[in-house]
């Protein structure tokens, strides 16, 4: 089992490596536009340059700080309201239509309004990120609570559990696997939105780098930034997997 698992670990790496190799070859053979699809080697060189000149690290820090502040502001309320809505059909009846109405509102399109309300500084950017990651967290969490078997609520009630106790000992752990999948969605959404906001209005961050790369049509910088984003996505996933292993030790893992 261990051995085959190791194979599976390497398969995605091999896949990506293969795609990059074909890409490199196609570009060097002149069959792909080097302007829009610069050779992976060029991208790697750019990546290295951006990394060593600290351009990339500084921008990563800027984006990540927006991601995490936004996540804290959005995902925590999303979690709490999701737990509450998942547990109570009353709260669902009240909030569900509001959530449904607010969720699809285009965040970037209302960014000017948000800037008018929250000012032109960091707050607005972080608020947009928070709003965006609030929803997946809430919807996943509420679904997670609803799939908790009712018997566990009965047990808690039977032993005189009060609201808060039921929350922390039944609702939260029972929905935890789905809270974590909501967290995964929320983290990625936060990153997506942080970048989207930066594309529109920020002087630093991965999004502003992407915008800049497009404005100057330096596509190798664009790809280097996209690769950074992908790397952040992978690290987020590793964090969530680690959290899952730590926080959900009771999860039964099927093989195969």
């Amino acid at each position: 089992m261990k051995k085959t698992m190791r194979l599976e670990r390497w398969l995605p790496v091999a896949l990506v490596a293969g795609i990059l190799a074909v890409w490199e070859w196609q570009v060097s053979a002149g069959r792909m536009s080097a302007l829009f699809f610069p050779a992976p080697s060029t991208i790697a060189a750019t990546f290295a340059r951006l990394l060593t000149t600290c351009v990339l690290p500084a921008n990563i820090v800027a984006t990540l700080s927006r991601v995490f502040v936004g996540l804290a502001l959005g995902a925590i309320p999303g979690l709490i309201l999701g737990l509450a809505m998942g547990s109570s059909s009353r709260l669902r009846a009240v909030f569900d239509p509001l959530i449904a109405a607010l969720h699809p509102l285009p965040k970037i399109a209302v960014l000017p309004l948000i800037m008018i309300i929250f000012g032109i500084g960091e707050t607005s950017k972080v608020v947009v990120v928070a709003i965006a990651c609030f929803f997946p967290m809430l919807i996943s969490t509420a679904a997670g609570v609803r799939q908790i078997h009712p018997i566990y609520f009965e047990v808690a009630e039977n032993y005189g559990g009060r609201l808060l106790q039921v929350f922390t000992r039944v609702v939260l752990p029972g929905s935890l696997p789905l809270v974590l999948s909501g967290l995964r969605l929320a983290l990625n959404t936060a990153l997506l939105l942080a970048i989207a906001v930066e594309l529109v209005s920020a002087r630093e961050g991965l999004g502003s780098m992407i915008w800049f790369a497009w404005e100057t049509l330096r596509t190798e910088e664009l790809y280097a930034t996209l690769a950074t984003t992908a790397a952040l996505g992978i690290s987020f996933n590793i964090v969530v997997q680690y959290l899952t292993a730590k926080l959900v030790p009771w999860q039964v893992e099927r093989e195969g």
Partner: protein
Amino acid sequence: ARGGASPTPELAHLKVVHLPYLTFAPLFIAEEEGYFAEQALEVEFVKFDRSSKAIPALVQGDVDVLGGTISLGLFNAIARDANIKIVAGKGYVTTAGCPFNGLMARRELLESGQLDEPAHLAGRRVAANPSSSSGYYVEVLLAGSSLSLDDVEIVDIMSPVKLDALEKGTVDVVYASEPWVTHILRAGHGEMWLPIQAILPGFQTGILAYGPTLLEQNSDAGRRFMVAYLKAVQQYIIEGKTERNLEILAQHTGLDLELLKEACWPTFHDDGQIDVQSMVDFQNWAVAEGLIDSAVATKMFWDPEFIEYAVQVLEVDKQ
């Protein structure tokens, strides 16, 4: 056939980048007045939210004509062997007349004399985009006072927010072009401080560019397009804010007639000429700033063949 080179030119279908801006007025007029149709052109307007975003499509031949503001991406694409060229001007900074764009400042700053000269910008908060022409304007302005962009706080915000930020005092100076100049004036919290004509007179703000489809494959259609375009430019220049032009602009920009009448309209050279020197300067600035790799030679980015042809045809027509 009016203005046609060949007697019955084949109908060509062209995709043209469309933004609902005043600087696109000649394109709207050519379409609505049937000048394109006269030239056996069927024009399909393609929307982008910024003209610079259409450059990849132009390089790929997915669109045939790009109208827009000059942008660094255009020069960089050319530097990287993309076969696209500027073929006509589309708006320049006039030295006479009303200001189409410029730096606007909070009214109280102007009235209290805190912003009498460019040097007073130091430490102020300025809304502009450092990697585009508005950043260039600010930098040129500052250079005159031996200041640089580092001496001011640059913020990049959307036009509607500039209105609100001036009111709240969260910015001091904003770059604006019409119709936002009028919006800001109407809202009453900002005034025109330095029109661009005071900073960079004659600067070529807008251009029309062709991609490989018209440069290589169907230059005949490119010529015909230019005839229609310049004909519209001339109508625009000569007639100005006539009812017909107002109607066409209202239709394509979505702005109401009142605003259109009140706003300052951009100026064009009636022969489609561009100010090559201002583009060289702009490029040199960008190279110095590290925004583009290298400046491209004039003949690489500028192809006057089409306007020369069109001017000639229109001359013949007039006679």
